């Protein structure tokens, strides 16, 4: 796996060294903010139209009543100084769009699950999903003004996390903090590899 230099004429099928990290969590927990904090471009948004095939695998009662259903996801791109391109995707806020999650999770290095301790249950679905798929993840407790101060142990207990999964507090608006979150995730991935 060599890094691909952009000056070389690309040939079809050649691998580009791009890596993908996901940011998940409940609505309004700060996913897009985290993506913006580290992205070199303003976060982009892409949408996928929901087709018949996509729905029906999950609760569609809420979908049926809507005239138009699109799934939006925000993402950012970071070209690392060594030429690697890192994509950070915010997962669609609504948990029923699992089909989009599957596409996002495919080939992803790992995930950050953002948690608002006032609405801890919002992240259960994400945690569940990554555990089942075997996607390495960490918990980022976003620091909200006025949020009750839960200890990491309380969060860990509530989510029933194994001890090796890092739980860190962060302010996703802060670029350095956002970087620290991503680094913590990648370090966690490295440790989980060496355990295998």
């Amino acid at each position, binding site marked *: *796996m060599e*890094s*691909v230099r*952009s000056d070389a004429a*690309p*040939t*079809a*099928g*050649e*691998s*580009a*060294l*791009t*890596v*993908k990290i996901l940011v998940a969590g409940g609505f309004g927990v700060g996913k897009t903010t985290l993506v913006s904090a*580290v992205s070199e471009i303003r976060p*982009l*948004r*892409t*949408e*996928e*139209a*929901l*087709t018949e095939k996509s729905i029906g695998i999950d609760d569609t009662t809420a979908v049926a009543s809507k*005239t*138009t*259903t*699109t799934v939006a996801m925000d*993402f950012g*791109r*970071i070209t*690392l*100084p*060594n030429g*690697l*391109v*890192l*994509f950070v*995707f915010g997962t669609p806020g609504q948990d029923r769009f699992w089909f989009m999650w599957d*596409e*996002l999770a*495919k*080939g*992803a*290095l790992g995930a950050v699950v953002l948690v608002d301790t006032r609405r801890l249950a919002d992240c259960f679905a994400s945690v569940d999903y990554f555990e089942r798929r075997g996607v390495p993840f960490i918990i980022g407790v976003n620091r909200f003004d006025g949020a009750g101060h839960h200890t990491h142990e309380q969060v860990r207990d509530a989510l029933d996390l194994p001890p090796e999964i890092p739980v860190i507090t962060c302010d996703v608006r802060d*670029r350095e903090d956002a*970087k620290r979150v*991503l*680094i913590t995730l*990648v*370090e966690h*991935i*490295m440790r989980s*590899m060496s355990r295998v």
Partner: protein
Amino acid sequence: MDREDGHAPPEGANGAGGAGGTAWYDDAAGPVVRPYALTGGRTHYDGVEFDLVALIITADAPGPDDAHPGPQWVPEPEHGMILELCRTPLSVVEIASDLELPLGVVRVLLGDLLDHSLIQVRRPAPVAQFPSERVLKEVIDGIRAL
């Protein structure tokens, strides 16, 4: 009233759906219908799978006489927009975002372009299945250096 501008009367405008008289779409379908008109109604490309982060690069112009057999292909303006965008490599998801089109539509359009050898595709390296420690270290160093 003359109709020499060629516009069909409104009541006939949705006749493209064919016989039967039952409209296959209604208000509930919303604007979802429109983007797929670009693709002639196709929602899927049967060739390679375009990964979200695969890079698309506009190919060097093919020889003019290297005509493709079969019926003449009439590209949509969006095909040209993709070729314009991808003079510098761009990921599938960024193309969709730039053109403000659903991913599914962009994938069909990319399939057309690939079929006509107008683009090249660089798949993302399969780092996730077996990420090497070296790559992960590079990612960490890269993020630190931001």
